[in-house]
């Protein structure tokens, strides 16, 4: 590849990535490293969500089901077999394959529906997975969940940090290429105008299903990393709260961009950390979720494009997400 042909923004991202590799040698506090790890994980999860929401214009309220599938597949594999790298890899492969199959089936069955029906149906399906995890105690440990041991190699937080960072970088650049490919252009045209895309000769359903499979597999991988960082799994990995969290991250950061969800994940995680840390000052900070809600409403009202979207609009006059809003209003 010709170095000149690489876009300037790519160089900036590479530089940031390199900086992040140095961070764990400077920031050695375990709690801070843990927060960064969570940001990487939720950044991945939110990017996968944004592939549907921001790029294809699909609103899903059940995206957490793939996250949960990834989390449980790996946790169960590590728990049932010994805590070795092969067991972990088996778990990861299972996680990705099951997520691919589930997202494919869900996509084929439901993506023909109009968007609000699809949103409702995904919500119901995610609920189904949650109930299944609660009831199938022999496999999932039910509500209490279970802890498990990790392979030696990824036990300390520094190696987890690098694992998550490398994953984030790969997925970020992978998705970036995807969204800039001919396929990605069609996804955006679907977001803009589904009917028109069809009359240009594209089979819209195929694109939506492929996008949801890619997105599901990535979400599942985020789930894998999540339980690795916790060494514990319970039914909360299927909770709808998590879908709302990534929705929030995506919207705060900037819908229809890839860096946006990562920034959103960072802000939400740090806000969570600092606000709950302030609970000694005033009891309201213990109820940080209230503040969260307020921020969410303010962002939607004043920065509907999110942080990245607003900056882009100011700098380059680009508003990638306006079409999304138009589509939504068309639906209702």
């Amino acid at each position, binding site marked *: 590849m010709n170095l000149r042909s690489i876009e300037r923004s790519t160089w900036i991202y590479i530089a940031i990535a390199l900086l992040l590799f140095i961070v764990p040698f400077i920031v050695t506090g375990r709690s801070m490293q843990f927060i960064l790890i969570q940001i990487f994980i939720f950044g991945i999860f939110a990017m996968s969500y944004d592939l549907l929401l921001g790029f294809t214009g699909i609103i899903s309220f059940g995206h957490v089901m793939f996250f949960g599938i990834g989390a449980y597949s790996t946790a169960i594999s590590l728990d049932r077999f010994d805590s070795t790298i092969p067991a972990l890899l088996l778990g990861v492969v299972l996680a990705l394959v099951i997520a691919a199959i589930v997202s494919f089936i869900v996509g084929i069955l439901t993506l023909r529906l109009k968007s609000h029906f699809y949103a409702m149906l995904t919500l119901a399906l995610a609920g189904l997975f949650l109930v299944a995890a609660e009831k199938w105690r022999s496999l999932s440990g039910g509500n209490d969940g279970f802890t498990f041991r990790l392979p030696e190699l990824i036990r300390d937080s520094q190696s987890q940090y690098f694992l998550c960072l490398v994953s984030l970088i790969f997925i970020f650049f992978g998705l970036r290429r995807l969204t800039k490919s*001919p396929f990605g252009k069609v996804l955006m045209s679907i977001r*803009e105008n589904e009917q028109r895309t069809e009359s240009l000769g594209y089979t819209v359903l195929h694109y939506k299903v*492929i996008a949801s499979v890619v997105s599901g597999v990535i979400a599942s991988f985020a789930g894998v990393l999540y339980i690795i960082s916790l060494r514990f799994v319970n039914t909360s990995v299927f909770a709808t709260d998590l879908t709302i969290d990534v929705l929030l991250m995506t919207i705060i950061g900037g819908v229809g961009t890839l860096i946006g969800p990562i920034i959103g994940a960072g802000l939400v995680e740090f806000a969570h950390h600092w606000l709950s840390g302030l609970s000694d000052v005033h009891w309201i900070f213990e109820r940080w979720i209230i503040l969260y809600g307020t921020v969410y409403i303010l962002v939607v009202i004043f920065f509907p494009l999110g942080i990245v979207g607003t900056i882009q609009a100011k700098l380059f006059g680009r508003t*990638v997400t306006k079409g999304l809003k138009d589509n939504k209003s068309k639906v209702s």
Partner: protein
Amino acid sequence: MEAIIQTEDLSISFGGHVAVDSVSITIPSKKFTSIIGPNGAGKTTFFNLLSGQLSPTKGSIFYKEEEITKLSTTERTRLGIGRSFQITNVFPNLTVLENVRLAVQSQKKVRYNMIAHFRHFKQFEQKSYEILEKVFLLEKADSKAVNLAHGEKRKLEIAMLLALETELLLLDEPTAGMSLEEVPAIIDVIKQLKQEDDRTIVLIEHKMDMIMDLSDEVLVLFHGELLAKGKPEEIVQNETVQSAYLGGMYDEKQLT
């Protein structure tokens, strides 16, 4: 005379209202056919049936003697039926170039490539620029479609249709809502198209001088039915058409 598209007893009703009523027509290949009729006569609905946006309640459609009644819009486009829309139907937040490029990309059958960067498809861009030049829209290539003037959106609509390189072009009122000074440019584009021999064009229009000038054959729809067909001169002379058309145009009931 070879037929490119044929309908048999084609009907569609919405609730109790029959929008297209048992229309059986043959559209000759490589000719210029116009469809006229007062507002609400079912012209656009008829187009929607041909291009697959709507499926008929009754009757069938044949494209080059093969039945396509059950095929989706996508499949019909791939067979060679392209259409433009009366209500401008573009990708609002993509640039003009990107709009056309999506059509070119579909025509070149690069549909599922997720690996290659778009940069590597320079020929699509080249082609898109050529088409934009044809419709006099080159200088707007980098503007977002949403920011175009109405007439320019109509041109973009035609550019996207051209990019698909379909054998059959269904043009749904390409001059609708245009200011007078914008119309000649569109007519020029359509004339150019007509000169390319291997194209079949079906045009819905209200501007009679345009119809007279361009058409080989004219079909008249009225209340969803085929009222008359023939050469433009014949149609103008036809008394039923005159009374129906003028009566329909100025009938208060028709306007509501």
